[in-house]
């Protein structure tokens, strides 16, 4: 295991946001809001949300995003919102996920969010609260801020098996199935994992090398893998990754150099965090696999 140098913030240059530091009240959740024990002591270190803030800065949406982040944190509590930073090779964009699988917090419902964000980012779609959704998400990027409102929501419903689910996209009063997904332990449930991956309309696994580009070996050393079947693509997600694995992922997927450099510079102060990442998969006519959209996750 590589020991990473701890870089003092002064070496990071001018930042338009104060570095978020860990505190004793931090809670540690993965992108399903499942708690985990930190890999290392978090005392005196940095929070993963610094990566979100840096990405927001690079995308040009830091200023309008900060009040939204603060409003959600004040309403729902610290570390109760999952953020996703996404990259399609050209632009960074973001999604926020609010979980409440047990329907315990009225503020974590669509209705509650509508109230929380009323003056900042009005939520357009209407959702019947009788729908047994366990999570809702929405994009947070430049087009959303330019329009001044959230025009689409995503609702997530659990399957009978609690480790699987479906998502629906809600636009106006319309709702459509967007994708299905299932979480698996990568090694103990390898047969099911392989069967799910290979049951694909989009990826041809007959060349044995293809699987090596989907189940990337450096990410396969993880806690859980999620296989997603989307309308136009397959996706695969890896959760429970170290900062070293995240750095390798950011480099492999050619995230913007300033973001990678920032992550590299503060890596020593993020060694307590488990990260989650996702890759959409695309196969060209020659059989080569590419990743048209990738993402990584944390909480604030």
């Amino acid at each position: 295991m590589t020991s990473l140098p701890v870089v003092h913030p002064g070496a990071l240059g001018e930042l338009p946001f104060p570095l978020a530091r860990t505190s004793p009240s931090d809670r540690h959740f993965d992108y399903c809001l499942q708690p985990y024990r930190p890999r290392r002591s978090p005392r005196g270190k940095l929070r993963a949300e610094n990566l979100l803030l840096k990405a927001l800065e690079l995308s040009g949406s830091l200023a309008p995003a900060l009040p939204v982040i603060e409003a959600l944190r004040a309403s729902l509590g610290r570390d109760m919102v999952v953020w996703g930073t996404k990259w399609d090779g050209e632009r960074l964009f973001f999604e926020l996920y609010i979980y409440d699988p047990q329907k315990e917090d009225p503020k974590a419902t669509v209705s509650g969010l509508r109230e929380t964000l009323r003056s900042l980012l009005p939520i357009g779609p209407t959702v019947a609260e009788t729908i047994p959704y366990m999570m809702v998400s929405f994009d947070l990027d430049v087009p959303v801020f330019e329009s001044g409102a959230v025009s689409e929501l995503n609702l997530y419903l659990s399957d009978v098996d609690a480790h699987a689910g479906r998502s629906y996209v809600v636009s106006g009063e319309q709702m459509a199935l967007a994708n299905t997904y299932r979480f698996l332990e990568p090694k103990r449930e390898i047969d099911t994992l392989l069967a799910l991956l290979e049951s694909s309309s989009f990826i041809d696994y007959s060349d044995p090398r293809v699987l090596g580009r989907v189940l990337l070996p450096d990410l396969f050393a993880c806690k859980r893998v999620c296989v997603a079947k989307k309308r136009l693509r397959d996706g695969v997600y890896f959760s429970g990754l170290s900062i070293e694995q995240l750095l390798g992922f950011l480099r492999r997927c050619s995230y913007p150099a300033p973001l990678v450099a920032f992550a590299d510079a503060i890596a020593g102060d993020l060694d307590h965090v488990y990260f989650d990442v996702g890759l959409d998969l695309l196969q060209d006519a020659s059989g080569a696999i590419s990743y048209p959209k990738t993402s990584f996750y944390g909480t604030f």
Partner: protein
Amino acid sequence: MQSFKGRTEPTRFEDLTVTVDFHCHSACRFCIVQEGMNDYRGVPFERFKQAVDENQQTPRYRRVSFTGGEVTLEKKLFDYLAYAKASESFDHIRLQTDARLLRDPAFAERLLEAGVDEFFVSLHGPDADVHDFITQRPGSFEQTWRGLLNLRELGATILTNTVMTTLNVDHLAAIVQRVSALEPATMEFWNYLPMADKADELGLIVPMARLMPALRRALDEARERSIRCAVKYVPICLLGEHASSIDNAQPDVVIVEEFYDLYPKFACLWEAKCEHAEACLALTHAYVGKYGWEKSLLVPEPRTKPWVEPDEGLAYGTEKPLEPSGAFPRGPAENEPDPWRALVAGVAPEHDASLASLVLDRRRCTFRFERGQASVDVVLTKRSSNRQALVRSRSFNISYRNLLGLDETGDDKAAMAKLIEAVAQTVVSRDAGEMLLDERKGLVGPTSRRKRKS
């Protein structure tokens, strides 16, 4: 809570390897320290003395190996040898060498007199055509062979090492045939590890479908000649009747820190299903990236016991032959003086339990206790306030993991909790602060590299 590190660095606790310096007169196309040659510094003599002195105080290494670069090029080698020999703390002193300079019988004899009793000689082809193409030094095969003959003449223990690449894969059996006349103690075959060239742009990684038949033929040849072989970095399931020849252990290596940044990681799709999981490294990530997971070629041996996700990779406590396939490697025997065992001696019987195994590697001392069907590992790592621990003694962080086999009444859990607490408190009371476990023995910081003229 499980930890999910990549599987890497299986260290054999009883061997210490010292990199004296990084110069070489060959230029092997697969060289794993190529990036650091003429850049990395060797281990400073004072650092080496410290390691030897520590070994005198707390014996843990039985063998010290000197390597480089080509270590015989270093005049200071004899200072290192003299100190190691004088310490009388090692059973064996080994040289890892290409033996080219040993073509001079006087030099070979001088090394033996200095205390070297094992020569681990790199030989990558059965003849000059193959070997010299790999070393990129015409004449190197003849020089190495002359060196080997001199060692044979002197009665030294000879081991050979062949790194298997696309350049020599078709000549492995011929190498065995050639070397057999030397009556080597062991022939080692190491599958090529891409260190810097992760994408294998040099085309040196051999696909398993080509490598394994050639390797098995070589192992057949060796068996016919009663030559012991050790194979590294190939999946055990592909070795067939030669599965027992696998030996993935590496010694503790005192080397520059950056070396480990490049060290490959390994993985296997079938790890949780395979009986060999605890001893097999399977495929490097670079291999998977180039040739895939070999989903159909690798065949897991059904497990006979539950699989437990390894925290830190494999652990090898001893070079003694492993227990039957899949068994947990053992530490020192019950009747050997063992300060590690003494840390917990007597505790288990007071709790109707037994100490089932003790495994040492560079980073950990793992005690496995059994009580009826229940078992638990109590783990000592280097003391660090930055890492989670149940409790800390003067030298160690103490934690536990793999609490398994508990009954449903809760009685087992309560009894095991008392056992864990007693073990931890006993270690705290007996640890005088002089026992050593390292996270890394590497050299860190500016002293690890040579100064460059600007």
